[in-house]
């Protein structure tokens, strides 16, 4: 290995690790906590590798978002560009980057990559993008045929698939029973089942692999038993040895007391207990008996008092005393407490028969749903990201027979770097596994995984932190990974880092647990030794949110005073939690930049636009129609609305067009209504002649919509709305108003353009990767939303010597409380969620450079000696932090004067109708003069009448023209009726391919043949086809007539002996019955203008008398007339 790596870095304690991470022939997994400078490390390794490969495409760098990919590419390119300088920069870490980039430049020159001209060669992508490119390269191996569109929103596809799945209910065959079983189980609620299926399809990458493995009852039940056993083992190990004897003995005595008293308490199970129960599922009841003896189910602590009900009657003094002593000794045993309490939620180790039936049906149903989804994908030609990942997986082949990627990608993948590895999902992990299949330890190919398991916060997007732990422990496939960890925090001050170290070391679990996703805390070392700033607790008591906003505003104002240039961020878990704070900030004159916070649908401008769209699209959407009359551009009063619409079921648009009805409005109301009617009328009449967006936007402009918005930010919001309309446009229509609402609910209002960028409000997820001088974390007492019910619950339990165990529980029956299996697994999943909440808190706290404010609220309760603090609601972040900050709350509480009850609810603000002034006028649309050339006159040519016979006649005409052209060119003398007739087979083939139906074929051929032969036999026909002076067939002429450019092809033209220019068209139409002459004259009138146009073209080129003629080969008919509008004469 060459030694270009500079070992003198300013990374202090991390220097060695950072240096090792650049070794290009080894694989690593790096734990890089908040603020540890991992992006730079990643960039440096990328550069280092670049200098060793043959082509840049041999390195694949995978980032979590497209934005991150862009940033990393930027860093790499900038580094390479900066290395053009001959002198390295003075800072050691930048000098290292310079050095590495320098080597890349040399390599580039050597290999003629021209990276500077062609940065797209760098493969820095999201995994989704890479998977998509794989499927593009291997469309058949991936089973696709062609890479379909990737739908950013696949919900509609899922709904369609779910609907088809449920439709199987009425089809014969096995599926019907499965659907019926599930429906019966779920109270026959089709809608609910559909929704649950949709939710399942959205995460099918997870369950597909488990149901693919087959599901035998014994296997699944054995897995449950192993899980219960594992938990009981952990419980048994946590029993304090010194207390075991008493625990058992006293519980036995109590149980015997209860048995004697005839109780049916669960404690009675312990009546025969002589030693700790074994860690086997059969002993679960004994453990439960123990638990009930020492713990109350609803409480988070050991029992405080023991009574007769627990088997400790007052007359057995000694027993009771010993038991009370034991409880005191148990006091600190929190782990034992938790594990013992958990015995109540242990899942059963066997399925009941009904559960088993439902599980079987469910698995059937899920398979069917997945298959239906494939059909939907195929029909619609679009798929979701999951499908692309699954297909990419398939394209990569089986683990033992991997696809040769070098053939498909043109380059052998040499190195893979993955950022944010802690947020990898199962399907992504599988993809990595497959990509590295067949790698051997010393072949020079490397993996480099970077992430921070403490910051894994995308569980809701199927991220699985256990995968990070697993990779670190076991490697990926055959690739072993050298663990490295970074500890230096370059971001925060020592004060902040110190607090975080202390708090999170206590909060995070002590031991790593792959299955539960438990990550122990890794302490950080502050790079910035300053003691500036720190962590402050904002304690609130018994208030319901109003004063939170005030407190936050006050502290932000204080920060602004002392340090005006600092950046401040308010980070929230859920968007709803900061609405009041945002309003208070606005009132205080602080315009915070709200990053994707306020729902777009909440903006009045957007609501008005949505109503306008709905009204235009649906004339009977009464709410929308009334709304657009109430909107500021019209502003009808309630009285006028009532006058217009009360007691009349007719559509509002009809009512508006009812002059009498309009008379009942106030004079001002009528004027307003009329102004709006005048704008709406053309929009309604021309509905769907323009794209949807245009129809709505232009109507909005016409109504004066932009004059009605609250501020310039709302013009941007209107744009966001219009952009959505473009997406939803279906042939100029909004086909589904519900889709509009659904989509709007997913969009966020744009920040005000004048917002203060140093004061930001956003979700913690959005803040990932960012940093601020001051961070405020509000509403810590709020509980996170709990998971929705899902059709199938599953957990994966890795096993060292065998395939992992899957724990499966089908959904509990509708409205039936207490399905021990489902609930038992749910508890296990909830524990994972709780761990994720802690990580979220860690991410939030580590955004702070100097100051962190934790804002929380607790209730107080009256006790004998005054009020005391009630513990915060469990599962809230505050509850997690409580042991750390309880003392802060207590001292804060001691300092507050006893709160007086405030009566917050006042009268609602009076309703104010905002509207344009009565005499407001729309500024007229401006215009730059531009000259429109006359439009080609297409309308005239459109055959409104269409018939299949007419279409065949047209084909006949084409061939007759072609043949007459041939005759004229070759000369009449060379053509005979026999020669014409011999063309029949040729004609048949031609007509056949032109879509002429078999029945029409014979007559059509006959018609063509007879047209040509009769022309040949007709004197007029022969005269036309004879060579004359300047005779030409199919003569193409262009020119200017009446100011517009015209072109035409003239069937036949020549100059006769008298010097007359003849301009002749052939018409192959025939006529049935009636007067032939009348027919000919009608035809002349029909084509007169066209031939006159030709005549004028000729007239522009030559001075000659002109005659125009129509020749009818089928009839051997002829009509002629002199050009230039002179009266025509006809002769036979």
């Amino acid at each position, binding site marked *: 290995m060459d030694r270009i790596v500079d070992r003198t870095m300013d990374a202090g304690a991390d220097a060695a690790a950072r240096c090792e991470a650049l070794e290009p022939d080894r694989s690593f997994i790096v734990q890089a906590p908040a603020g540890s400078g991992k992006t730079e490390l990643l960039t440096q390794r990328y550069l280092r590798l670049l200098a060793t490969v043959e082509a840049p495409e041999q390195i694949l760098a995978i980032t979590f978002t497209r934005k991150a990919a862009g940033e990393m590419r930027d860093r790499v390119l900038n580094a390479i560009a900066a290395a053009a300088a001959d002198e390295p920069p003075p800072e050691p870490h930048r000098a290292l980057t310079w050095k590495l980039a320098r080597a890349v430049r040399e390599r580039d020159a050597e290999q003629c990559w021209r990276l500077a001209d062609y*940065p797209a060669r760098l493969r820095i992508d999201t995994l989704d993008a890479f998977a998509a490119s794989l499927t*593009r390269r291997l469309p058949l191996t991936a089973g696709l045929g062609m890479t379909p569109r990737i739908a950013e929103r696949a919900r509609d596809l899922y709904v369609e698939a779910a609907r088809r799945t449920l439709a199987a209910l009425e089809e014969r065959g096995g599926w019907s029973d499965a659907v019926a079983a599930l429906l019966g189980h779920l109270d*026959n609620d089709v*809608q609910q089942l559909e929704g649950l299926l949709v939710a399942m399809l959205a995460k099918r990458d997870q369950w597909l692999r488990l149901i693919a493995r087959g599901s035998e009852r014994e296997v699944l039940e054995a897995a449950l038993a192993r899980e219960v056993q594992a938990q009981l083992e952990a419980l048994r190990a946590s029993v304090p040895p010194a207390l075991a004897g008493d625990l058992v003995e006293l519980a036995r005595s109590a149980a015997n007391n209860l048995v004697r008293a005839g109780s049916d308490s669960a404690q009675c199970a312990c009546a025969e207990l002589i030693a700790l129960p074994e860690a086997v599922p059969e002993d679960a009841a004994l453990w439960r008996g123990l638990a009930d003896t020492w713990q109350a189910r609803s409480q988070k602590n050991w029992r405080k008092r023991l009574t007769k009900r627990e088997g400790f009657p007052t007359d057995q003094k000694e027993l009771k005393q010993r038991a009370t002593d034991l409880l005191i000794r148990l006091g600190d045993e929190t782990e034992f407490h938790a594990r013992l309490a958990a015995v109540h939620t242990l899942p059963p180790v066997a399925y009941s028969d009904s559960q088993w039936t439902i599980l079987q049906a469910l698995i059937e149903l899920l398979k069917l749903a997945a298959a239906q989804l494939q059909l939907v994908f195929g029909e619609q030609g679009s798929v979701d990201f999951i499908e692309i990942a699954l297909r990419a997986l398939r394209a990569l082949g089986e683990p033992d027979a991997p696809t040769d990627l070098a053939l498909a990608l043109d380059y052998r993948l040499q190195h893979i770097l993955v950022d944010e590895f802690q947020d990898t999902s199962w399907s992504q992990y599988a993809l990595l596994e497959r990509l590295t299949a067949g790698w051997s330890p010393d072949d020079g190919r490397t993996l480099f995984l970077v992430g921070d398991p403490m910051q894994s916060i995308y569980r809701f997007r199927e991220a699985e932190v256990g995968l990070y732990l697993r990779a670190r422990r076991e490697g990926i496939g055959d690739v072993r990974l050298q663990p490295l960890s970074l500890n230096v925090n370059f971001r925060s001050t020592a004060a902040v880092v110190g607090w975080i170290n202390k708090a999170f070391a206590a909060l995070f679990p002590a031991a790593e647990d792959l299955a539960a996703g438990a990550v122990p805390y890794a302490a950080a070392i502050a790079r910035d030794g300053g003691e500036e700033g720190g962590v402050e607790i904002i304690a609130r008591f018994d208030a319901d949110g109003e004063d939170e906003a005030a407190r936050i505003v006050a502290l932000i104002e204080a920060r602004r005073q002392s340090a005006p240039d600092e950046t401040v961020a308010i980070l929230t878990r859920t968007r709803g939690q900061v609405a009041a704070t945002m309003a208070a900030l*606005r009132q205080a004159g602080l315009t915070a930049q709200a990053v994707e916070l306020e729902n777009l649908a909440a903006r009045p401008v957007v609501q008005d636009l949505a109503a306008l769209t709905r009204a235009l699209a*649906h004339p009977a959407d*009464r709410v929308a129609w009334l709304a657009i009359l109430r909107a500021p551009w019209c502003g009808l009063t*309630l009285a006028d609305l009532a006058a217009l619409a009360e007691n009349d079921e007719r559509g509002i648009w009809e009512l508006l067009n009812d002059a009498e009805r309009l008379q009942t409005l106030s004079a001002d109301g009528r004027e307003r209504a009329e102004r709006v009617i005048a704008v709406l009328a053309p929009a309604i009449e021309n509905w769907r002649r323009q794209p949807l967006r245009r129809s709505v936007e232009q109507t909005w402009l016409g109504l004066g919509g932009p004059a009605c918005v609250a501020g310039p930010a709302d013009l941007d919001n209107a744009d966001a709305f219009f952009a959505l309309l473009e997406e939803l446009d279906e*042939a100029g229509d909004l086909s589904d108003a519900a889709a509009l609402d659904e989509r709007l609910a997913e969009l966020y209002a744009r920040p005000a353009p004048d917002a203060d960028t140093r004061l930001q409000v956003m979700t913690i997820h959005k803040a990932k990767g960012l940093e601020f001088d001051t961070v405020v974390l509000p509403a810590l007492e709020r509980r996170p939303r709990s998971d929705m019910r899902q059709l199938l619950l599953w957990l994966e339990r890795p096993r060292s010597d065998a395939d992992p165990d899957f724990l499966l529980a089908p959904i509990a029956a509708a409205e039936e409380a207490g399905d021990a299996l489902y609930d038992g697994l749910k508890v296990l999943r909830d524990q994972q969620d709780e761990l994720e909440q802690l990580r979220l808190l860690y991410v939030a706290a580590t955004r702070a450079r100097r100051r962190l404010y934790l804002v929380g609220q607790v209730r107080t309760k009256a006790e004998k000696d005054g009020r005391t603090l009630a513990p915060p609601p469990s599962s809230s972040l505050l509850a997690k932090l409580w042991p750390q900050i309880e003392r802060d709350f207590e001292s804060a509480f001691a300092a507050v004067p006893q709160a007086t009850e405030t009566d917050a609810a006042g009268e609602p603000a009076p309703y104010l109708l905002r509207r344009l002034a009565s005499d407001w006028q729309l500024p007229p649309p401006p215009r730059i003069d531009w000259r429109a050339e006359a439009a080609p006159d297409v309308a005239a040519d459109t055959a409104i009448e269409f018939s299949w016979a007419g279409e065949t006649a047209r084909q006949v005409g084409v061939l007759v023209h072609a043949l007459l052209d041939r005759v004229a060119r070759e000369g009449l003398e060379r053509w005979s009726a026999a020669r014409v007739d011999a063309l029949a087979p040729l004609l048949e083939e031609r007509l056949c391919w032109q879509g002429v139906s078999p029945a029409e074929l014979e007559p059509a051929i006959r018609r063509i043949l007879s047209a040509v032969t009769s022309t040949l036999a007709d004197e007029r026909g022969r005269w036309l086809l004879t060579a004359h002076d300047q005779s030409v067939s199919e003569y193409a002429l262009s020119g200017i007539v009446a100011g517009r450019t015209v072109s035409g092809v003239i069937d036949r033209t020549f100059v006769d002996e008298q010097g007359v220019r003849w301009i002749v068209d052939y018409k192959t139409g025939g006529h049935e019955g009636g007067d032939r002459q009348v027919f000919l004259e009608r035809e002349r009138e029909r084509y007169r203008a066209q031939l006159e146009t030709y005549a004028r073209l000729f007239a522009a080129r030559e001075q000659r008398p002109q005659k125009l003629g129509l020749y009818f080969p089928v009839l051997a008919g002829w009509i002629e007339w002199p050009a230039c509008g002179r009266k025509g004469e006809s002769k036979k």
Partner: protein
Amino acid sequence: MALNDLLNALEARATVVTVNDRLARRVREAYGERCRAAGQDAWETPSVLPFGGWLMSLYAARRDAAFSGAPPAVGVLLSPPQAEIVWARLIRQSRDGGELLQPVAAAEAAAEAWRLCQAWRIPLERLAAGNDDSLAFAGWARAWQRLCAQKGWLDSAMLPDWLRDELDHVTLPEQLVLAGFDEWTPQQTALLDAISARGVAVSHDESPVEQGTVTFYKAADAEAELQAAAQWAAAGLRADSRLRIGIVVPDLETRREAAIRAVTAAIDPAALAPAAREQARPVNVSLGAALASAPLVYDALLALRCGGATFDLADVGRLLRSPFVGGAEQERVRRAQLDVDLRDHGEIRVTGGTLNRYAERAECPLWRHHWQAFQNALAAAPRKGGARVWAEVIDAALSALGWPGDRGLDSSEKQTLDAFRNLLMDFARLDPVLDAPMDRAAALGLLRRMAAQRKFQPQQAGAPIQVLGVLEAAGLDFDRLWVTGLDDRRWPARPEPNPFIPLAVQREHGLPHATAERELAFAAAIGRRLFGAAPEVVASWPAREGDVVLRPSPLLEVGVRDSEFGVRDEGSLDWRGQIHLAARLESLVDDRAPPLAPGAAIHGGTGLLKDQASCPFKAFARRRLAAEAPALPAPGLDPAVRGQLMHAALEALWQTVVDQATLAGMDSASRAAVVGRAVDAALEREAARRPATLSPRLRELERARLADLLEQWLELELARSPFRVLARESDAELAVGGITLRFRIDRIDALDGGGQAVIDYKTGRIGGGVWEGERPDEPQLPAYALARGDDVSAVLFASLRRGELAYRGVALDWEGIRPLYKGAETADPAELRREWRDTLEALASAFRDGHVAVDPKNGNGTCAHCDLGPLCRIAERNDG
């Protein structure tokens, strides 16, 4: 470029073949302009053809030559859809193609790979060196080759080679000039060589490209980029209205509409108005949209999907609002109302019978007529048939539907109609390549696909501003040109080699887009051409896309790359901005409606009080303005219908059982029988109303559910003190607050112990505190109790929700009854009645007097279940 040379050649009667259609048109126009400048008002149309069109003309000439005694040409050229059908069939029948997600799309990809093999002279044997994908393709290609040879077919990929062998039988021009080409495939070269070997003077328009002055512009994002370009174009136009101005937009396919909008808004915003016509726009776009997305065609295809016993409600709803269905002009609002009625009805699929019944009620005779005729026409079709047969069926069905409507077609709609008919003709021409008759689904699927692939652009007058894609711009000349989208990911883009041809082979043959080197050279060549296409060029890139930061293309010259210039000139037209600045708004208090006219009819019984309690504005809007948004039906039975079913079953049950004693006297078998009959009666009625939803098995399930629930429920009835059912579904009224409410009480029991119980069946959830305070959530039971007078001794919810079965309420005799709220047991009946009366009085009189406060009881919680937001404008108030 040397347009002049081309025109000179044309004057000398040369044939000019151009790289694309657009350039051909431009050359033709320029020729006309030159003639006019020379004082000619008419001229022989010069022979200018795009390459593909020129080949087609040679092909046609060769075929016609057979009329003149040349040997009949062996080779029928398949149209692209014809070829695609054959490819798809071969793929479907192949071993590798059977289980592809999209076999038809694979056909498109295979045809493209085949074209490359032909154009670049790649022998199929070379594919053996590749991976499974190329091997599979090699198999298909061989099958295709065999089939073509056997049938005498050829496709456009083979055409140049075929023509080369047939040159003896066509007349060639004396001089051939090729214009606008950046590169030639070996296949094309071979053809041209053969032509020049026949004495044709073949020349290339290869005049050197002169770089114009190039300015660079950095736009915030793609949207802003287009706007800047549009304003720049407007400024140019204002300076000189005869300038030829072009804007190049690389991803024009998706940005088409945005470009039209931006440019038109900058020049003549009125031309975007709903009533404005296509022709009146100052901008021309080189690319058409898919014919399938043209409204006229879209609705036709949509309608054709609706044949059979039941229809998708959403599809029917769209057709009801379609201007392209016969009679839409006269019945517009009524049809929309019909859609609303159907949605209220609540089935996501409806039968023809249901549709017809509702249509009759909604007074839409024209709809009924057309719909019936349309269905008849579809039903008359054979089960299977050829393309021509289906084409006629489709045509006839659409005419029966009254399509394309009676609004009168504007010019672009007329052209769309023509294009659709041509498409239908092309469809009819598929017969010679079909191997079996198709059923309707297959035929429609094919037609839809063809419509989606066909690009359509209505003809339009020459406009001063041209918007073009990169390839369409090849060879054109402008006075000013703006090139957008020059960021470093797109220009040069990553190579996208064809997946079916081994990369090594592609590299060796130098296929386009195959390798990085090739792509780089390609981008550079295009760049040279674009920057030479006008004396003044602006090159721009968007600085970001979403949250991704973009960099300028490295192919833009360094140095100037970072230069910027301002485009927003003073006089730029921003109509929207002008309107915004012209705002003059007023605010007034408006929370009173006129009081209710005495004796005015009130709809909805106690629901009115419920609304009034929940939010006064809601009561006003719903009850007086009848403000309802169209419902959104969901699959299965919605909660309201299930509630009705339960009501009906209970009503039927108590009709026979009469009192508790009778019930108690029944053994379990007869009880089950009574329950079964009651449930059947309820379901019978509902199934007649909702035939599409209550399908046999669902009905069975629902029957089991209801019977099970009822049997459980009867246990609760038995646990109460004895009673006799006095009335079921009984009409009652209550005068309160100056208005009279009419309603129907679910059930009244006479209690053996004295007094009556009024009972409300409830299948939804019952919250706590539903009767408390001045704004009770569920005021109906108090209203019933008051209406029944003093004899009432129990007021009960019958909670019929699975898992929550119970009688809950207030009562004197609590046997079998749970208190509805804390303290209910001790409530004083007289006091309670007084409270209730006061509460209801207050609510009713507020409603009567027109107090219309926007005051949701529980703030956002209340509004979350209310769809009147846009009307009451609560958001505006929240906005402050």
